[in-house]
């Protein structure tokens, strides 16, 4: 049998006809480029979140002492560290890497599609995440301090600026999160449409690789659960900026409303993060065991 000629491997620049940095990267709709952009955001944010973890742990180990590479940490700053570390790691490291990077890169490849169903929506989703990440970093530098009401942001602590002393810190935190949610809403729609519509002929759903199954399940879970939190975040922002009382009991609101809206999303969110990681495990193990995964159908169910 004659060996087939291998496909020619082209660089990103060559595949776009060498159109310049902006065209090749910023305005690229190619799923692999976008996947790598998600990875870059995730890794960059992980450096910041990781450094915060170092500060938290060393402060706990030697409280009150100046830290190497930083200095003293006053109590309000410690709370901001804990808040921002949690937010960054969950929303700007885990989700971009597990869903954005692995999903965008692998789903089209694994189902035999040329690209995602909506390449330009894909581009918009990574732009949105970049804007969200920038807002979050900026929120670290505002004069009243970064958000310090915990990554779960319970009101009234988070709803009344006087209770934390943060004004723009928490406002920008909320805006960054709202943008991050929209980014992944767009991505989720893309993943689902791609997996449902763009499979190669002959690939039934039951023949899809497990990673595709789990990524689209995670996307579906995210789409179904994030709505209440987006609404809740807008309500919290209105409470802070306009003076509404969704969560302020002094004027008829209920702090528990936020808790319900947040955790309606919060629990499914941990599955959104766990499923892609489990999927990666279930793809790699069979390769090295040199046999297909046991119980593919049961796993999908």
């Amino acid at each position, binding site marked *: 049998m004659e060996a087939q000629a291998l496909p020619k491997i082209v660089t990103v620049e060559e595949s776009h006809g060498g159109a310049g940095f902006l065209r090749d990267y910023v305005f690229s709709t190619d799923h692999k480029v976008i996947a790598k952009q998600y990875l870059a955001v995730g890794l960059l944010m992980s450096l910041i979140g990781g450094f915060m973890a170092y500060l938290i742990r060393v402060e706990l180990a030697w409280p009150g002492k100046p830290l190497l590479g930083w200095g003293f940490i006053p109590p309000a700053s410690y709370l901001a560290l804990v808040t921002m570390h949690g937010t960054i790691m969950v929303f700007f490291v885990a989700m971009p890497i597990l869903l954005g990077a692995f999903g965008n890169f692998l789903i089209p490849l694994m189902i035999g599609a040329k690209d995602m169903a909506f390449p330009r929506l894909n581009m918009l989703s990574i732009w949105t995440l970049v804007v969200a990440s920038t807002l979050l970093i900026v929120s670290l530098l505002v004069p009243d301090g970064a958000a310090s009401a915990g990554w779960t942001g319970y009101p009234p602590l988070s709803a009344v600026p006087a209770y934390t002393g943060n004004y723009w810190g928490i406002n920008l935190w909320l805006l960054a999160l709202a943008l991050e949610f929209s980014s992944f809403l767009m991505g989720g729609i893309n993943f689902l449409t791609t997996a449902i519509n763009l499979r190669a002929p002959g690939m039934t759903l039951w023949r899809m690789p497990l990673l595709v199954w789990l990524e689209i399940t995670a996307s579906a879970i995210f789409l179904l659960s994030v709505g209440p939190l987006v609404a809740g975040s807008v309500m919290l922002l209105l409470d802070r900026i306009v003076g509404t009382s969704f969560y302020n009991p002094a004027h008829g609101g209920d702090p528990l409303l936020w808790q319900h809206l947040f955790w309606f999303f919060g629990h499914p969110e941990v599955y959104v993060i766990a499923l892609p990681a489990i999927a990666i495990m279930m793809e790699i193990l069979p390769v090295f065991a040199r046999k*297909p995964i*046991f119980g593919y159908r049961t796993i999908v169910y």
Partner: protein
Amino acid sequence: MISAWFPANVSTYGGQIDHVINLIFVIVAIRFVLAQGAIIYFAIRYRRKPGSKAYYVHGEGLRQAAWILVPALLVLVCDLAIDAAGGRAWETVKGSLPPPSMAVQVTGKQFAWLFTYPGADGRFDTGKTLTEDTLYVPVGQVVHIVLQSDDVIHDFFVPELRLKQDVVPGRKITAWFEVTKPGTYEIACSQLCGPAHFGMKARLVAESPADYEKWLKSERTAAEKKTARVATANPVNG
């Protein structure tokens, strides 16, 4: 059991809570040893050796899927056992309110706990209340605490009592406990409430009923003396 490492339990329902934790610990420990043991055993026993052939088991079909479904069913059974024990503990601690010997209003605010005792008439609304920064209670009697917050969400937590209750502004939440052993126990705020959250602590002092009555009487007398002093120092028409 793991509860041997916990702070000493001085509450009548603490044992139930510790039981739930111990139950979860035992179930998880057994499953952990079995699961990890199986993985390690199989990884070594069926490792790649020259001359060994890999055997493909597809796992499709009910008979093979049973290898996944039966352990899943066992997990469910363990879950239900935990739910039953947890439900009983929940019913005791949060679902029931035994008739109290006394009640105290507990107010959490940024960043302190205040304890308001009723006046000698047993009421909170006749202006003869006593406000303290330490919670004194008699041992062996059911105490009700009515929790309220002036500002943000706090959490009233006494580890030795195994009692933890969020204090939510806009609500009055009644919790109960009965201390079994005299002593001084720390009350900590367990819900992030602002920059000085760490320091928001108070003390629970449990004494014999006789000592408690003595304390209460002396506090009431001191409060009355203070009111009298203030009244003579600032006469209304002066």
